[in-house]
């Protein structure tokens, strides 16, 4: 019974994808979206049932479908495991996907590639399910690459748009952004592959249980190498510095895609990997500390860029990046279940935030510049409420989901004695509150700047708003499940307890964070709630420009990686391949031709000359014979 539920949860999205693909090239059909959403809902129900089952019995379900690759000593099955960790991911993924699917019926209403969109979206969910459910690293890698491809397809969904300059659109074009995302992920995937190789050759298997039980026997170097390699993989998928640029460019995709893939699910795969491989990472404290430090850095780094950005979706993308940093910080510090909890909570409110942004875009005819919006609360009351709730959750205001999870992470940083990380995370929390509400206020409050552009905004369809409600509710209440969640997942993940000391001053720590968050909101309110006042001096300052241009990192990548690569390739072809390698071959051929041409002159047609040559040859032979007789 439970086994078939596993398959239903896994293959319902696949069925949905195939069904939509059937109509991929035909004109828009609403029922395609409906069927796809229903199949996704079935998958959600199956996942939820499995979650309930696992919660109650505490046992995990392990199925093996068939053998995939078997060569030499290597055997990789298609095996799936439903345990506390994966079932959490499954539920989150299918829930958000179902909402996003329904949302897309409304959002993609006017798009002629409606059916194709659903095909890709469901394919993505399928890959994600493989990723989280697999019982071995190779299966994880299938999902890992699968989501990469779906992300490529979906970012480049509007492939027909032309490339423009970076000044006009920082992501150049959807297809450019899609390729960037795919290639950057591939760089990380190489690391991941190497990690798999290290594990295989030292353990002899890629199954989680075999690998984890064999870890204590491995030397420190091997463990460190494996941890580093796997984390490189995680860095790519979760867009950690320096592989982070693709995530903001990925906003070129349709907004539901950003909500599902680039906020709630795919980008958290890196965190999932670290959580999944916690036995490995908890044995490599240096690497784990590096993960935490990098996560903290990215949290701050991304938040700083979000402060000044004007693009509605990019702000949310930066905040995603920042929150991923929080998750890595937690995971790196050993609080795996807190990382997973923040992952789930974040998925709800961030998806909600993105979908809200989608509503705004829909209303504003794809305008994304928040400086051109303002005062939308009149026409878009529900969207305002949703985005407000999501932002409150993101900012970590008490009793919203983010409060519990983020606070726990910051507390962990304190508890581990890493006060620098703690301080940065606290400051970042304040920045998070500021930029979230800067965005909300600029969009919904203040003067109605959009009128100058002749836009007539309207609220999203009712059913879409209803579909979004589960996320809104979860964004509010998810935090209250923290206790039972801890109880649930720590059956698999290591428990994490605050020390006595931390426990005692927890309220004080919480208050500090809250103070930063509230002051961030107040600052945003003061600056942006009434009307937009632009300060030329600030906008022309070096720091502002640096932040607005993402520290010029994309430009640096282009100048120092893409362009040189193209140039070297050109040289390799035109100079090395054509002028050296091929010319050498042709040179040999020419030499033969030349020597033939030269010796053609010997062919005088005069017998006498031939006789002379013959005599020369004969005498030479004689001399050789004589010499060899003499010497031999």
């Amino acid at each position, binding site marked *: 019974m439970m086994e078939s539920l596993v398959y239903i949860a896994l293959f319902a999205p696949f069925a949905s994808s195939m069904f939509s693909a059937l109509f991929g090239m035909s004109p828009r059909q609403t029922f395609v979206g409906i069927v796809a959403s229903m199949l996704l809902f079935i998958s959600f129900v199956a996942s939820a049932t499995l979650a309930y089952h696992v919660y109650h019995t505490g046992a995990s379900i392990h199925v093996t479908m068939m053998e995939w690759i078997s060569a030499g000593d290597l055997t990789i099955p298609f095996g799936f495991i439903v345990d506390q960790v994966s079932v959490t991911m499954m539920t989150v993924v299918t829930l958000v996907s179902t909402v996003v699917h329904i949302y897309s019926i409304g959002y993609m209403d006017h798009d002629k590639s409606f059916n194709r969109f659903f095909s890709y979206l469901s394919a993505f969910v399928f890959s994600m399910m493989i990723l989280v459910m697999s019982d071995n690293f190779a299966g994880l890698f299938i999902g890992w690459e699968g989501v990469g491809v779906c992300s490529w397809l979906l970012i480049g969904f509007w492939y027909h748009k032309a490339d423009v300059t970076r000044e006009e659109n920082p992501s150049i074009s959807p297809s450019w952004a899609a390729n960037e995302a795919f290639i950057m992920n591939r760089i990380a995937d190489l690391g991941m592959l190497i990690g798999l190789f290290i594990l295989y050759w030292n353990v002899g298997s890629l199954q989680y249980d075999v690998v984890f039980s064999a870890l204590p026997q491995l030397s420190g170097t091997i463990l460190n190498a494996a941890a580093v390699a796997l984390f490189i993989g995680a860095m790519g998928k979760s867009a950690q510095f320096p592989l982070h640029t693709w995530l903001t460019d990925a906003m070129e995709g349709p907004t539901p895609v950003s909500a599902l893939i680039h906020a709630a699910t795919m980008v958290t795969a890196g965190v999932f990997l670290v959580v999944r491989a916690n036995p490995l990472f908890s044995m490599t404290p240096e690497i784990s500390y590096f993960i935490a430090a990098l996560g903290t850095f990215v949290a701050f780094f991304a938040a700083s860029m979000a402060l000044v950005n004007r693009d509605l979706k990019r702000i949310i993308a930066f905040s995603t990046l920042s929150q991923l940093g929080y998750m890595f910080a937690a995971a790196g510090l050993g609080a795996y279940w807190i990382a997973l909890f923040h992952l789930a909570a974040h998925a709800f409110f961030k998806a909600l935030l993105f979908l809200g942004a989608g509503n705004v875009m829909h209303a504003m005819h794809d305008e994304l510049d928040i400086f051109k919006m303002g005062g939308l609360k009149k026409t878009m009351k529900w969207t305002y409420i949703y985005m407000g709730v999501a932002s409150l959750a993101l900012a970590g205001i008490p009793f919203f989901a983010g409060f519990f999870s983020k606070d726990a992470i910051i507390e962990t940083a304190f508890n581990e004695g890493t006060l620098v990380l703690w301080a940065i995370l606290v400051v970042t929390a304040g920045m998070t509150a500021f930029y979230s509400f800067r965005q909300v206020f600029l969009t919904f409050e203040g003067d109605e700047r959009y009128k100058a552009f002749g836009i007539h905004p309207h609220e999203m369809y009712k059913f879409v708003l209803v579909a979004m409600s589960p996320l809104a509710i979860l964004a509010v209440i998810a935090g209250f499940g923290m206790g039972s969640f801890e109880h649930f997942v720590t059956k698999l993940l290591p428990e994490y307890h605050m020390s006595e000391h931390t426990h005692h001053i927890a309220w004080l720590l919480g208050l500090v964070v809250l103070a930063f968050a509230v002051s961030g909101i107040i600052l945003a309110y003061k600056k942006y709630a009434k009307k937009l006042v632009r300060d030329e001096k600030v906008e022309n300052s070096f720091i502002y420009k640096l932040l607005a241009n993402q520290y010029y990192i994309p430009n640096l990548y282009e100048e120092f990686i893409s362009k040189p690569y193209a140039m070297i390739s050109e040289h390799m072809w035109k100079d090395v391949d054509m002028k050296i390698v091929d010319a050498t071959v042709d040179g040999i051929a020419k030499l033969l031709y030349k020597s033939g041409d030269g010796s053609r002159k010997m062919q005088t047609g005069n017998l*006498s000359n031939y006789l*002379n040559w013959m*005599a*020369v040859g*004969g*005498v030479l032979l*004689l*001399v050789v*014979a*004589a010499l060899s*007789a003499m010497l031999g």
Partner: protein
Amino acid sequence: MYEIVAFYLFSVLTIGLFLVTVMSKNVLYAMTALASGMVLISGFFFILGADFLGVVQLIVYVGAVMALYSFAMMFFDATRDIKEKNTNAGLVFLLGGLSALVLVLMFAAPIHSDAIQALYPMHEGAGNAQDVGIVLFTKYLVPFEVAAVMLLVAMIAGIILAGKKMDQSLTEDTSADDEIMTLKDAK
């Protein structure tokens, strides 16, 4: 003793005569020298006890071959000096000299091998002709017959090649011959 005298005499004469053959501009001189040289070579054969070979040499070379040459020469204008651009003398004598030197060196070197044994030894008492006959008609019968056939073929070939249009003169009035005309034109 007489053998030494004969050997040196023949040697000097043949070398001289052949030199004349090779260097002379006049075909008649050359041919005469060649024929005389051949005769002297048969002398070598007689000294060496190869009587039969010597006789064959006289008959075939001096008799038949030289006769053929003389007849052939009737077709050409033999009285004229031959005008030809001889190959660069330096090269010729370098190659000739070198080959002579090397060959002489090789032949003058002592032969060390004891493994050389007579395959068909000569019999004491039996005449040379007898010996030759026995070997030729037993061991070398097939080659001998083949050689005979070859000679026959060569004879027929010679007749056919040379005999075509024998009725026409080669030296006079060739313009009458169409074939020659066309060939000359072609050339």
